[in-house]
């Protein structure tokens, strides 16, 4: 028989400090993503390989300087990979393993459950972009520093929009269906969604992937503010996806 010193479990309830909860939750989310081999393949290895390939080989027609255009497009791909596909798959499996329910039962406020995931995703995206940017600089990319604030803004906006779409997909369907769909959509967006190359068909520009790639290209290559059109497309997708996701997301 195991006995416990009297008073060991004497009630002393209370909620932890909000900044600490947010920090620990975001750190947990980021750590788990970075520890997951499949996520690293999707979010780091593939974008890195494509960046090198697009910069050095002229298989796909791209405006010169190739490396600048390639960097902008691969930044967009990296954001889609981690904020959309990675987030959707992770959420699908987190729900299957009951973690949302587990955390909802703790003193963690609901808004913090979302905020922690967003911060975790932003940390991962920041690391991806840093790694890709350094590689691009080695490949000869010259970044007009005037574009830096715009690039940062677009990265955050892209992460939020694709994150909302990822939650919309991963929050309601069964984990294995999420896994299949999230990967298929990623591939379709890469090939014909205006990421790998700009497609001249009108409706493609209304996709969030094309909008993000186009907006990033403006700021990364020319160092100027992105056009209003692509930003509006991104915001619209983000708002609609976020609003839908709050209705459809289930804990399990």
């Amino acid at each position: 028989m195991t006995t416990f010193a009297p008073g060991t479990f004497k009630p002393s309830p209370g909620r932890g400090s909000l900044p600490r909860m947010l920090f620990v939750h975001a750190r947990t989310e980021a750590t788990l993503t970075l520890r997951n081999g499949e996520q690293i393949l999707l979010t780091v290895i593939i974008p890195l390989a494509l960046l090198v390939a697009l910069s050095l080989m002229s298989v796909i027609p791209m405006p010169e300087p190739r490396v600048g255009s390639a960097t902008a497009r691969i930044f967009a791909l990296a954001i889609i990979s981690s904020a959309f596909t990675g987030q959707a798959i992770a959420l699908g499996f987190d729900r299957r393993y009951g973690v949302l329910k587990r955390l909802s039962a703790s003193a963690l406020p609901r808004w913090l459950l979302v905020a922690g995931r967003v911060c975790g995703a932003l940390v991962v995206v920041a690391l991806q972009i840093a790694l890709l940017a350094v590689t691009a600089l080695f490949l000869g990319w010259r970044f007009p520093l005037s574009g830096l604030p715009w690039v940062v803004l677009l990265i955050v906006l892209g992460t939020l929009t694709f994150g909302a779409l990822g939650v919309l997909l991963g929050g309601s369907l069964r984990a294995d269906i999420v896994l299949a769909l999230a990967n298929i959509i990623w591939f379709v967006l890469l090939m014909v969604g205006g990421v790998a190359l700009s497609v001249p068909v009108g409706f493609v520009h209304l996709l969030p992937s094309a909008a993000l790639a186009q907006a990033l290209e403006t700021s990364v290559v020319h160092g100027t503010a992105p056009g209003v059109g692509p930003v509006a497309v991104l915001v619209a997708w983000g708002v609609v996806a976020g609003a839908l996701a709050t209705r459809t997301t289930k804990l399990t």
Partner: protein
Amino acid sequence: MTQLRAGRPDRLGCVLVSPNPQPAVEVSGLVKRYGSKTAVDGLDLVQQPGTVLALLGPNGAGKTTTVEICEGFRTADAGSVRVLGLPAGTEALRPRIGVMPQGGGGYPGIRAEEMLNLVAACAAHPLDPKWLIEVLGLGGAVRTPYKRLSGGQQQRLSLACALIGRPELVFLDEPTAGMDPQARRLVWDLVGALKEDGVSVLLTTHLMDEAESLADDVVIIDEGRVVAHGSPAELTANRPDDQQLRFRARPGLDTTLLSAALPERLKVREVTRGAYVVEGLIDPQVVSTVTSWCAQQGVLAEELTVAKRSLEDVFLELTGRELRS
């Protein structure tokens, strides 16, 4: 006997919890429907603070639905549910209650210690996670991802998450499901320690021995209604003549002669093939009558025992013996 002490002592400035005059849980007229199926059908229960209450019932009786409404995961269709004096689902309740959902919960890739640290960060005065990990026998699995833990290990981690925040009230939904006998013992000891320290515990189970040895009060529910309520002693020995003589013999014996030979208030039944039971006040004369009847039948009465009704008998009597789909 091992003595365990929390690694982190009570800190100064921790919230003092005054003895609470309100019931820990107060449910009245609770109704919950899923489509056309009524899962909970006018359920009432009251749990006094500092006590252990077991919700006992067959699968599908409405135990988990009731507990999840108390925890705030589901909303009631009718009736009132108050937890620690507040309406169930109130945000302010969450730090005060500890929840062990059925089947646990964790990130598939998280390690036990990381999961517990995360939940500990949500509490103002948590227990020491390292200590709790050791107490629950998870020390050897701290680096194993959650999805590779065994069912019993996942359950133990879930229990740790329920206790880490030093709650006033703990909900344990089938806490020992999937656990080996050693772990089950440990959970029972933990529940005992919680009660000693003034924590209220509401648990669900379909294990009679668990309810019998842990609970101050047992509420037996079936098809969403309370069918019996009382302490294990009250439920099993509400009548002085409520005893049983059980024995095993050849199946299909004609018991009419035995019934005739016994005093009228005693009942004889073959409960399952070859298992006979005589119910009523069992005295030495009754035992003698039974054994001589067996001798006349040319059979040997095996495993002959006299006992009071077990909680299992009460349970089966109330909820029926046939298997539920």
